[in-house]
C-alpha cells in the first residue's frame, strides 16, 4: 500500500429485526387454529374452487368468501425446487425440497418444505402427507414439513364451521433482514477524523456550503463534495427541545436538552445533547463545545464555552 491509498471504507453488519404482530381476521384465524388441531381448512370460491390456504376475498369476483371446507392432510407435489443449504429459520435444518403441494380436495397448492433424502427422490406428482409438529401453537409451522407417502388418496373436501375452542386471533410474525452496511467514503473520512476528536465536513464546489456530516454529495447541487474542511470544535445552539420522557435504549436521565448545534464553519446544524448547564437555562444562541468520553465515537454531549451568546442574526439562516 502506498501513502496515497485511500483509507478502507468502513463496513459493519446491520441486522434489522422486529416481532410484528398481526390480527388474523376470521379466515386466517380459522385456518391457523385448524392447523393446531391437525385440521387443514380451505375456502370455497364463487366458482366452486377450493383455495388452500384460504383467503378472505374471492380472487375472481372480489366477493367476501367464508365457506370453509376441510381438505385431506395428503396431497401431490405440483412443482418443486431443491434447497441444498438451508438458511436460518427455514423449516428444516438439513437439505430439503421447497414444494407446492395440492392437498387432496384442494384446487390450489400450498408452499412448504418436503423432507427428502436428495433431489433424485423428488418429482412432480410425488404423493406426500403432512408431518405435524409436536408442539403446535396455531401457526404455519404447525406443519413441520411434508414427507413422501404411499397410502391412499384423501377424502374430498367437506364443509367445516371453522370454529374451535380457544381460537387463535393473532400471531407474531418476526421480520429479520441481514445487511452489510457501509457508510461510504465521505462518512468514513468523517468517522475516522472523529477518532482524533476532529470534526471534518466537506465543501460543495458549486455552492460552497460545508456539510457536516458529509454525505459525499451536495443534496442541492447534485455534485460530489471533495474539499475537506475542519469545523468547530465550538458551535452555536440554533434551537432545541427539552426531553421529559425517557427514550427506550437510551441511558440518559430526563429532563435533558436535545439541541441543534451549528459548529463554527458548518452550514448545517447537527444534533446533540446539551449538558453542563441546568436544562432550563439552555437558550438559542448558546455557545457550546463538545465533551468527549473515553472510547466514545461521538461527543458525549456539548457544554457551554462561557462565551457571550451568538446574535440571532448570526445563526438564523441555520435554523
Amino acid at each position, binding site marked *: 500500500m502506498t501513502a496515497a491509498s485511500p483509507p478502507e471504507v468502513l463496513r459493519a453488519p446491520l441486522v434489522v429485526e422486529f416481532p410484528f404482530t398481526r390480527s388474523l381476521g376470521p379466515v386466517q384465524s380459522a385456518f391457523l387454529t385448524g392447523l393446531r388441531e391437525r385440521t387443514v381448512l380451505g375456502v370455497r370460491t364463487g366458482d366452486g374452487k377450493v383455495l388452500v390456504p384460504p383467503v378472505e*376475498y374471492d380472487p375472481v369476483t372480489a366477493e367476501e368468501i367464508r365457506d370453509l371446507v376441510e381438505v385431506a392432510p395428503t396431497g401431490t407435489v405440483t412443482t418443486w425446487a431443491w434447497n441444498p443449504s438451508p438458511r436460518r429459520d427455514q423449516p428444516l435444518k438439513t437439505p430439503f425440497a421447497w414444494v407446492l403441494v395440492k392437498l387432496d380436495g384442494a384446487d390450489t397448492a400450498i408452499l412448504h418444505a418436503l423432507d427428502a433424502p436428495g433431489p433424485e427422490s423428488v418429482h412432480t406428482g410425488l404423493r406426500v402427507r403432512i408431518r405435524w409438529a409436536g408442539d403446535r401453537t396455531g401457526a404455519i409451522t404447525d406443519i413441520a414439513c411434508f414427507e413422501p407417502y404411499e397410502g391412499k388418496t384423501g377424502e374430498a373436501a367437506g364443509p367445516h364451521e371453522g370454529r374451535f375452542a380457544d381460537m387463535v386471533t393473532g400471531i407474531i410474525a418476526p421480520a429479520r433482514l441481514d445487511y452489510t452496511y457501509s457508510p461510504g467514503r465521505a462518512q468514513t473520512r468523517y468517522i475516522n477524523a472523529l477518532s482524533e476528536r476532529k470534526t471534518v465536513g466537506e465543501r460543495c464546489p458549486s455552492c460552497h456550503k460545508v456539510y457536516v456530516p458529509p454525505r459525499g454529495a451536495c443534496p442541492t447541487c447534485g455534485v460530489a463534495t471533495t474539499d475537506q474542511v475542519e469545523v468547530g470544535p465550538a458551535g452555536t445552539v440554533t434551537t432545541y427541545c427539552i426531553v421529559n420522557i425517557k427514550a427506550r435504549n437510551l441511558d440518559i436521565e430526563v429532563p435533558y436538552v436535545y439541541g441543534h448545534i451549528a459548529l463554527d464553519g458548518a452550514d448545517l446544524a447537527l444534533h446533540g445533547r446539551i449538558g453542563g448547564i441546568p436544562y432550563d437555562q439552555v437558550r438559542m444562541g448558546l455557545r457550546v463545545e463538545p465533551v468527549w468520553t473515553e472510547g466514545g465515537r461521538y461527543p458525549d454531549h456539548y457544554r457551554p464555552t462561557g462565551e457571550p451568546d451568538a446574535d440571532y442574526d448570526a445563526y438564523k439562516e441555520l435554523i
Partner: protein
Amino acid sequence: MSKEPVAVVGIGQTHHVAARHDVSIAGLVREAAQRALADAQLTWADIDAVVIGKAPDFFEGLMMPELYLADALGAVGKPMLRVHTAGSVGGSTALVASNLISSRVHSTVLTLAFEKQSESNAMWGLSLPVPFQQPLLAGAGGFFAPHIRAYMRRTGAPDTVGSLVAYKDRRNALKNPYAHLHEKDITLEKVQASPMLWDPVRYSETCPSSDGACAMILTDRAGAARSPHPPAWVHGGAMRSEPTMFAGKDFVSPQAGKDCAADVYRQAGITDPRREIDTVEMYVPFSWYEPMWLENLGFAEEGEGWKLTESGVTELTGDLPVNASGGVLSTNPIGASGMIRFAEAALQVRGQAGEHQVDGARKALGHAYGGGAQFFSMWLVGADEPAS
C-alpha cells in the same frame, strides 16, 4: 388536448380507533373500499384500476401490499399501483389516481391508503441501529419540537397558541363519528395542564396512534354525471419534494411546501387563498404546525399565522376553518392520514361532512406532508366543475 376533469364520487373511511384486532389488514382496507363504493353506488366491476398507499414498510412490516391486498380490493385483472412517499403518501396516492383519469388512461379509479399502527412500530422503523451513526436522542416529538421553538422565536407567537389548536381540533373531532379521539370533557385548561413531553410540545398537542383506512373513487366527467351524490371536482393537485437535510433548508417553512401550494393555486386559478378557499384540511401532527402551515401555504404572511389561530379564524365557526374533521391531532393512521385530509376536503365541498360541515364550503384544500418535511402533496377541490 385538454385534460379530463376529475371528480370524487365516493368516499369511505373506517371508524378510526387505537386497535382493530377484529380484522386483518385486508379486512380493514376492505371496509373503507366498500364504503366508498356504496357512496358512489358502484361495484367492483366498475373500477378500472387501484392505486394504494401506506406508511414505510418497516413501520408495520408489511412489504408489497399491492400483492397481498389485490383480492381484498378487487384488483385482479386490473392495473394496481402502490405509491410510497412517507407521511404524505395518502395525498400522493390520490394524486396518482387523479392523474390516471385526467390523462384519460382510466375512467374510474379506486384509491386507498391505510395503516394499522397497533401492529406497527413507527418509532422503531425510524430509528434502526445503523452502524457508526449516533442513535436518535430524542424520540418522535424530539424531531419536531426544535422546529416549533424556532417558529416561536421567529414570529414571537405566545406559547399558548399550540394549546388553542389542540383544543379546537379535539372539539371538532367530537362532531366527526370517524375520528379516533372523542374527548367529550375536553377543556382548554386540560390541554394546557397536560404533561410537557418535548418542551415546547405537550402530550395533548401530539397526534394519537390509530388503526384506519380511507378510500376514494375518482372518475371522469361521464362518471360524475352518473354520480348519485354531488361530486367534488379536482381544481388542482401537485407534489413537491426536497431533501430532509440540506444547507439552507427552512425547516420552519420548507420551500417545497410553498412551491407545491403555488402550483396548486395556479392550476385552480386561486390568487388570494385566504379569501377564495373556504376550508383547509392540513397535516398537523403537532399542534403548532397549524400556524406554521398557514404561513407556508400562503394563508397568512410570514410571522402572522398564529394570529389567525389565536383570533379564532381557524375554528369551525371562523371564516377559514382548519381541520373541521379533528385532523391528524385526533386521528392518525400514518399511512392513511394524508388521504383522510384529501377526502375530508372533498366531503366539505360535497356538503357531506355532517356535523362538522363548514357552512357553504365551495373550495377546500387538502394537504399532506411527510418524511421530515421531505414530501408535500396537496389538492384543491371544488363544488363546481372547473372551467377548462
